[in-house]
Each structure stands twice: as C-alpha cells, then as structure tokens.
C-alpha cells in the first residue's frame, strides 16, 4: 500500500470514526428509545420501572390511544407507527428475535399465519363483544378483534352518474364498462380480503378461487382499472378516470365526509352484498418477556374499554376512526352509515394461505 493511500486511509478513517462516534453518542443520547429498544425490555423492568411496551401499529388513531393508555396505566409505550406492509416485513425479519410486544393492523389473515407459526399469545379479553365481534374471534383466541371495517365500499361520483349497481354482477354490464376501479391486492392490504370474500361468496371454499378468477376476468374484460391503493383509486375517482371505486369502507366514508362537493364531484358510498368484514386486530407476541406480555394484555383491555374506544373514535375522525365498533354500547361516528346488513366473515386460516396464489393470478392476468 502506498504512503499516500495509507495517509488517506488514516485521515478518512479517523474522521469517519470521530464523526460516527459523535453522531451515535448524540443521537442515542438524545433518544430514550435508542438506548433500550435493542436490549431486552425486561432489563429496564428489573431496574424497577415498567418495561416499555413496543407497539407496532398501522392505525391512524394509534398515537392518541397509546398516549391515553400510558396516562391511564403508567405503562410507557414505544410506538412504531407505519403502514401494514412495512410492519409485517419487520415482524417477519425479526422472526428469530422478535422486538415487538403487540401488533395492531387491519385484516386477520396475517394474524392467522402468525398463529400457525406459533408467534401469538392466546388471550381472551374480559370485555364483551357484539355478535359481529364474536364472529371475528378465532377459536384458539390467538388474536383479538377490536373494531371492524368492510371490504369493499363502492364509492361513486354522483355528480357524473345516477346509476348505482345493486350487486357485483351488475358491474359486469355494459353500463359500467370502463368506469370501475379497484386496488391492487399485492399493494393494498385490504384488497386481498375483498377478493377472497368475492371468491367465498361466488363459490365457497371448494370452488371459490375458480369462480372468483372467472368473475375478475369478466370485470377486466369490462374495462376494470387497477390502481395501487385506496388513495390512488380515490384520486382516479376525483380526476374522472373512473366513476366507481371499490375501496375500504373507512377510506370511502372519509372521502364522502371531507371531499369538497361541486358540480363535477360529489362522492357517495354504497355497499354491495356481501360486504366482507375486515377487522382491526391486535396480536400479542408470544416470545415477549412475561412483564411485556402482561402489559400487552392490559393494552387490549384498555382498547376495548370505553376510554380506549373513545380514544380510537376521536383519534382520526376523517380516516381510520371511521370504523364500526365491536364493543356493545359504543356507537360509530356519524359520518359512517349504518352497518351493512349483508355481510360475511371469511375464514382467515383457509383464505390466508391462498393469498400469494391469488395475488400472482391478479398480477399476471388482471392488472
């Protein structure tokens, strides 16, 4: 190695190490999270203070709920608030050494898979649930539904059309040709449950996949537009690329409530039979230290309590707070219509494992 190279190496490395050490010390010093999140949560519990509960959540109202929980119980929470996709990626990547204490996202198919892998701690909360809520509870109680939305709401621009379909079959008629849009199931978490629900409705567990694929092919032949996620489908609706969009009920209700209405745009929502339940679900990490598991159970109880439900309903009133409660006596926000009478619950343990197969079909044939 030449002298100049050695010199450059010495200088560069020295500067780098100095800056890195300075950066690390300043960044970790300024962050309580950074000093303890990587370590076992039980270590801080041993020191006397409660171990922080690490919550992975994709709910729009999670920050106020966790804050209210800490106020009510004194248990500190470290919130990792992100979309469902990145959170499930983290959970999968951490499988050898899970860092999360509690996972809270929409849809129960991922939880069914985590349950099959033995990653979830079964828990039965004390709070009673409505009949819809009870239908969503798995037989082994490996996860807890705490609210529900449905897939799909049919959102449409009533300023451009008076026709509202009465069934999914109606969408195949020429009247709706080129006017309907939906999300891509490989990018939009709520959309696979919708497709699985369609398949379940059209052919049950035995013939549903084939019947559903046939239906989607016909829908595509009738000019179906596919957009990445709820937001993109709504954008297409507002810009006139489509007149009807099939999206999650909370997104549809939020759009109806907040989008400006004028002569060219007036969003309304309808629910075609059958609406498929898409619950918000909490799962507890089975590998977490016992104190953290106990805290997670308290968190579930809090979320199902009147105070927790209130925090959920107030936390994101034009977004994720537009859910239907599954706790008796708690009312949905006024921007949400009454719960669809024609609804179904799909078995996540059956339909979950088919997700990759169905998404691959959609990717190659429908998109």
């Amino acid at each position, binding site marked *: *190695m*030449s002298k100049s*190279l050695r*010199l*450059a*190496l*010495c*200088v560069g*490395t020295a*500067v*780098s*190490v100095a*800056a890195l050490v300075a*950066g690390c010390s*300043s*960044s*970790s010093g*300024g*962050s*309580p*999270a950074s*000093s303890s999140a*990587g370590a076992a949560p039980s270590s801080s519990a041993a020191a006397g203070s409660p171990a922080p509960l690490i919550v992975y959540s994709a709910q729009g109202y999670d920050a106020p709920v966790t804050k209210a929980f800490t106020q009510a119980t004194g248990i500190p929470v*470290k*919130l*990792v608030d*992100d*979309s*469902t*996709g*990145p959170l499930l*990626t*983290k959970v*999968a*990547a951490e*499988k*050898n*050494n899970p*860092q999360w204490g509690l996972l809270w996202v929409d849809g129960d198919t*991922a939880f069914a*898979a985590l349950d099959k892998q033995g990653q979830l701690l079964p828990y039965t909360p004390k709070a009673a649930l409505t009949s819809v809520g009870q239908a969503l509870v798995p037989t082994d109680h490996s996860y807890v539904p705490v609210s529900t939305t449905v897939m799909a709401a049919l959102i449409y621009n009533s300023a451009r059309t008076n026709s509202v379909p009465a069934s999914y079959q109606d969408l195949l008629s020429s009247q709706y040709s080129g006017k309907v849009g939906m999300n891509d199931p*490989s990018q939009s*978490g709520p959309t696979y449950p919708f497709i699985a629900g369609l398949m379940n409705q059209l052919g049950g567990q035995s013939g549903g996949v084939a019947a559903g694929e046939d239906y989607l092919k016909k829908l595509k032949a009738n000019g179906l537009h596919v*957009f990445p*996620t709820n*937001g993109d489908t*709504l*954008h297409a609706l*507002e810009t006139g*690329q489509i007149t009807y969009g099939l999206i999650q009920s909370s*997104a549809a209700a939020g*759009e109806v409530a907040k*989008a400006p209405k004028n002569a060219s*745009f007036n969003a309304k929502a309808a629910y075609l039979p059958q609406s498929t339940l898409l619950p918000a679900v909490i799962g507890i990490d089975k590998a977490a230290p016992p104190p953290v598991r106990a805290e997670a159970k308290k968190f579930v109880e809090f979320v199902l309590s009147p105070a927790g439900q209130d925090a959920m309903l107030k936390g994101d009133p034009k*977004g994720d707070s537009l859910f239907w409660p599954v706790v008796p006596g708690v009312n949905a926000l006024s921007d949400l219509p009454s719960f669809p009478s024609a609804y179904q619950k799909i078995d996540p343990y059956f339909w979950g494992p088919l*997700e990759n197969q169905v*998404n*691959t079909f959609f990717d*190659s044939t429908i*998109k």
Partner: protein
Amino acid sequence: MTTVLPAAQPVSAQPPDGGALNRARLSLSRFRSGPWLLFWLLIVAILVLPIALFLLVAFSPRLLGQGAAWFTLQGFRDAFTGTLLRGTLNSLVVGVASAVVATAVGAGVAWCVLRTDVVGRRLWAGSMFALLLAPSYLIALGWERLLEPAGVLELLGIPATGLRQAFYGPLGVVIVLSVKGVPFAFLALSGALRGLGEEFEAAARVHGGGPSAAARVVLALLAPACWSAFAIVFAESVSDFGVAATLANDAHFPVATFTLYNAIDNFPVQFPVAAAVGWILMALAGLALLAQTRALRGRSYRVLGGRSRPARRLRLSRTAHLLTVGCLLGLVVVGLGIPSFGAVSASLIDGLGSLVGSHRLTLTNYSRVLHSPALRAPLQFSAELAVVTATVTAALGLVAARLLSSRGTRITGRVLDLLLLTAVALPGIVFAAGYIFTYNLPLTNRLGVHLYGTSTLLLLGYLATALPATSRVLLGSVSQVQESLREAGRVHGSGAFASWLRTVLPLLARPLVAAWVLTFAGTLLELPVSQLLYPPGRAPVSVGITKALANYDYGGGTAMEVLAILFALLVVAIVWVLFRLLTPAGWRRIGGTR
C-alpha cells in the same frame, strides 16, 4: 498487503540492536495496519454482512427463520417466472438506456458549463445539484400530475392522451431515470474535465490533428469518468425505487426493484424470492463493472499534475449560444420545473386529490404542517443524521475512491469496487432487511451488540446506502491526482499529512463538498432504510411524509416534502457560501465555474 516504510528511512541499513528495532517495526506496522483494518471492518459491518445475510436467504431460508428449507432454489425459480422475470428484463433495458442517455447528457452539460462561455454557468451547475436533491418519485409524480387524465394539460385544454400513452411506460421511466442520472454523470465528468486542462487538445492540434482528433483525445482521457458515470447511472437506475413505485407501477410496467419490494412488503412476506431478485440485481451491476474494467484495462489516466492549467473557454456563436441555452433550459424544465410544479401545486391546493373543480389555492397546508409536531422534530432528527452521514461518507468515500484508483492494490481495489457497485445496485430495502437479519440475531445480542432499534443502526444504514454512490462520484476526481504532487510536497520538507493538505486537498476540496452535499440531500429524504430501521418513537421526516400521503393527506404530505426540500436547499446554499468564504482562492479556482 504490504507495509511501506517512510522514504527517508534507509531500509537496508542494519541497526546495532536489530532485534529490538525489528520488534519496533513490527509493532509500527501493526499500528499502521490499524486504520486499514478498521476501514475493512467497517465495510464488512455496514455492507458485507447485511448484504450477505440477505442474499443468503435465497438459498437457505431456514437459516434466518424465513422458511422450512435449509437449502432451496425455489426463490430463483420464482424470480425467473412471470412478472418477476419481466421486471428483471425491464430493469436491464431501462438501466442501459438511461445510463447511456444520462452519460451523454451529463457530458454535454459538463462541457457547456466548464468549456464554453454559455451564459448562466453557475445556474446550470447549481441546477445539477438541485436535481440531485429531487427524489426520483417527485420527478415522476410531477409528470403524472401534468399528464394524467383530467390533469393539468387537459385542464388547460391541451390533449394529453397521446403523450400520456407514450410516457406511461418504458419511455417515461427512461426519461425520468436519465434526468435523475444526469447529475451523477455531470459530477463524475465535470471533475475529470476540470482536471484535464487544455494541453492534450493543444498537443493533438500541434501534431496536425483537427478538432475531431482533439475531441477523440479528450474523450479517450475522459474514459474512466465516462465509464464511471455509465456504471453509476446504470446501477442507480436498476436500483431506483422512486420511479418504480410511482410512474412504472402506475403504468403497470414492472421493474426488478418493485417486484423485490412487493415480495417483502406484502403478506405473505417472501424474503427468499426478494433475495433471489437481489442476486439478479447484483449480477446486473457486475455486468456494468465488467464492462468498465474491460474498457479501461491496462491504461493510466492520471492527467492532473503540477503542470495542469485550466482550459480556455470556447466562445459560442449567437446561434450556438441560443441552442445551448435552449437545451440546458429544456433539461432543467424536464428535471426540475415539472416536478416542482407538481409538488408545489399539490401542496397549494386545499383538499388535494384532484385538479378539477373549484379547489382553491391556499397556504393552509403549509400553515398546518408548520404547526404540526409531525414535521419539526422529524426534520431535525433527519437533519442531524444527514449531517453525520454526509461527513462520514465524504471521508470514507475519499478513502474508498483512493483505494479504487490505486494501481498497487488491484485485488482489494477490485473487491471493493465490486462491493460498492453491488451495493449501489441493491435497493435500500435490501439493506434495511439485511440490517435486521444481522443486528437482530440472538447471537449478535448475546455478543453484547444491541444496535437494532437504535439511531446508530439507522445511521449505519444511511452510511451503507450513501457510501457506494459517493465513492464512485469521487472516483473520477481522485483517480486524476498524480502521486508526484504529494511527493513534491514531501521533497520540500512537508510532513505526510501537511503535504496532503497542501497538494491533494485543494484539488479535491470541491468534489468533497459536492459529495457532502449530495449525501446530505439524499439522506434527508431517504425512505426504505428509514422505514424499517427507525428507532421507536423517533420517525425521520420521510416516514412522516409517507404516512401523510398514505392517509390521503396529499396536501399536507407534499407541503412537508416541499419544506424538507427547501430546507435541504438552504443547507446546500450555506455550505457552498461557507466554502467560498472560508477556503483559499486557489481551492475554488481549480475547475470552478467562472
């Protein structure tokens, strides 16, 4: 590795106490190897291990808890079928096309700015940096706002169907990636052009060569920078995620990075498939490196020495002037004007979601965002991390570039070259997942390393994503610095460090500042690594922006975006002003845009 003694010491002289001196020499050589060892340890920790563990999952999912098989090739079988295969082929085509276009355009811009008297030279050079600051997804979204159905063009009564059909697909993807690649090519080539001087052209002309012969000589001498530009733009293009997730995705034009992302960002999470796509991306980068190596084999391109003189500028005719300004303006409009329009218009429209109807222009989004805790603390956190990342990356990038350009360390240099180019070709999400695999292993924790979930790991992740591109940008300039410069300083009595400070640093100061600025801007709005590695409760600004956009708050999200970019521009401006104020005139003169 060889240990070289200082030149002043007589190597053959036998001291009276040979054993003691030998022991001392041995100790000294160990001491000298320390930084070298530290450098490679850092490279292994931030690049080799995370990448290796991620890629290992393609063969052995069970090793990291990602499947039942200890050994399988199923991930590769999946990667070579259907949409995944289509994505890879599309990436290859798009990568080559955008690398060729960006290198040609970047060379043209560098030539205009450095070798002609075109008006507004500082503006054009500055616009290259501004282009670096613009995330590729912002450029793509700006175009989409313009061309989409009921978009701006159609609202203005301009039919956009034909243009939309052409742009929503490979052509649009190549255009955006080329525009995004031009600054990389410009940086690599302008550094080389600055150091080239005029003597080689003059020599060609003196020996009877015409302008074309002189141009051939110049192009031949610029070959390392050209190949460096091609390789880096190719690798950046195939690893780009911003365009892949926006324009390409909306156009249903799959590219490899997005198929990789899809494999691990959605349920069921398929790390083995993603890792197989990672191997393919790495192979693509290897092809670029191979082409570069074969093209440059056995030649020396060291032209920057004590006798180098800045070249004279070509005086453009009136027509040529107009044409040149028109072309440069077109590039700036395509790369900056349209995306800026998209972002700014989006942030100024109340209740954005559409451009139709009576949505009025308002500053409500800015007011809301400026008073929101979702902006200030995350922006400060990101800025702190970006400053540290940029500083460390500039220093390490210099070392890496020096190592790459060194002729005496061919094997280590080539290993490092392959590693860095591989890292450029892999999308950030690969690093992020690899970091989780590496630093969240029970074994790692048992060894007392608890980095996962800390700011330190996020910082290392940023460093890993920034270092490859930065070192390659610096390579063009570093490879031109002749040893004789520093040796002349030593002959005149300076110590090793002092001679480096006096002879080499002035030549590299400008590229180093450029590298710092590039890294700072890129890190400030980095998303994939931030998303998976940020410490609980301390989200960087990019995560906040994404969250706002995901919650359909387009106005708020884009307002945050615009403010973050304005902040980055402010920092960049301050850095350049400080550079002008604090550095000696000679440092700025070398290759400066006058």
